[in-house]
């Protein structure tokens, strides 16, 4: 359901003051039960009163297209990067545009990447094989890499999109606890 939400083609009307409208929070991760939807509207520098008014109009439109409770917050660049915005990192890394379904961070020329490091040294041989099947698949069944999109960038290092990070980690942890997740950005797309 999560993926359906951020992949959904939203019909939204908005002014040229709007830089982006993006989903963040639980609505991004595949497989999770969603109780509500968190949305950010990123504005150019306009009066806060106008931001709030336009945000309400956008919220109404979203509400017409989904039955879950919606929390929408306006930001401009200054308020978004204010140190008091504790949601900043999560929005920047996991946010998905409702306008073009791209990563929210593309507004800043950044592409988010989740790197999952794992070690199999302490595993028995049968578990190593099981782990390999989990990633690469077996007998016509897709593994995680193909099913959700991921790449083995070096031995013991997988790179995937942020929205799939949880799925990878949850399943990998069933076989090995030796997992470290690193989150970062690369310049460009």
């Amino acid at each position, binding site marked *: 359901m999560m993926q359906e939400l951020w992949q959904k083609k939203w019909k939204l009307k908005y002014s040229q003051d709007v830089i982006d409208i993006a989903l963040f929070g639980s609505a991004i991760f595949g497989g999770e039960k969603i109780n509500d939807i968190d949305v950010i509207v990123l504005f150019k520098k306009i*009066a*806060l*009163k106008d931001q*709030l*008014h336009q*945000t*309400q109009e956008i*919220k109404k439109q979203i509400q017409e297209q989904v039955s879950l409770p919606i*929390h*929408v*917050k306006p930001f401009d660049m200054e*308020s978004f990067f*204010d140190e*008091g*915005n*504790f949601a900043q990192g999560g929005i920047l890394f996991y946010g998905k545009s409702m306008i073009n379904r791209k990563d929210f961070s593309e507004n800043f020329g950044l592409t988010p990447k989740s790197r999952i490091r794992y070690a199999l040294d302490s595993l028995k041989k049968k578990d190593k094989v099981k782990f390999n099947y989990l990633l690469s698949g077996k007998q016509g069944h897709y593994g995680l890499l193909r099913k959700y999109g991921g790449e083995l960038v070096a031995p013991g290092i997988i790179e995937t999109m942020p929205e799939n990070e949880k799925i990878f980690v949850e399943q990998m942890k069933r076989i090995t606890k030796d997992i470290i997740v690193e989150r970062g950005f690369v310049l460009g797309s």
Partner: protein
Amino acid sequence: MKEKEQILLESAKEYYKSAETSLKNSQYNSAVVLFFKSLIAFSDLYLLRKTGESPSSHNARFRMLQEITLEVYNLVDKDFPFYQDSYVQRMSKELAEVIKDDARTVAKKMEIEV
């Protein structure tokens, strides 16, 4: 009902006055919370005068406002997230002034001077 009206009216004005003091002292988080509480008290008073009932929870308030007055509902709904965040985020002077205007708007609908 008259007694309840009086309590709501006095509370709304008291919150508003305290919020103005906080605003003057550059205590914007306090100002936002108090202006919002004033807005809520004025909204509840509006509902009480219109329906004879006042809500007992935020959910009930939003439901009643949506049914009775979309104009006030929109004001409360747009400001509510900031009230919720006021515990964990720094609020701005501009935001406090926006919510102040909204409280005044609802008061004016009932021809109440603040």
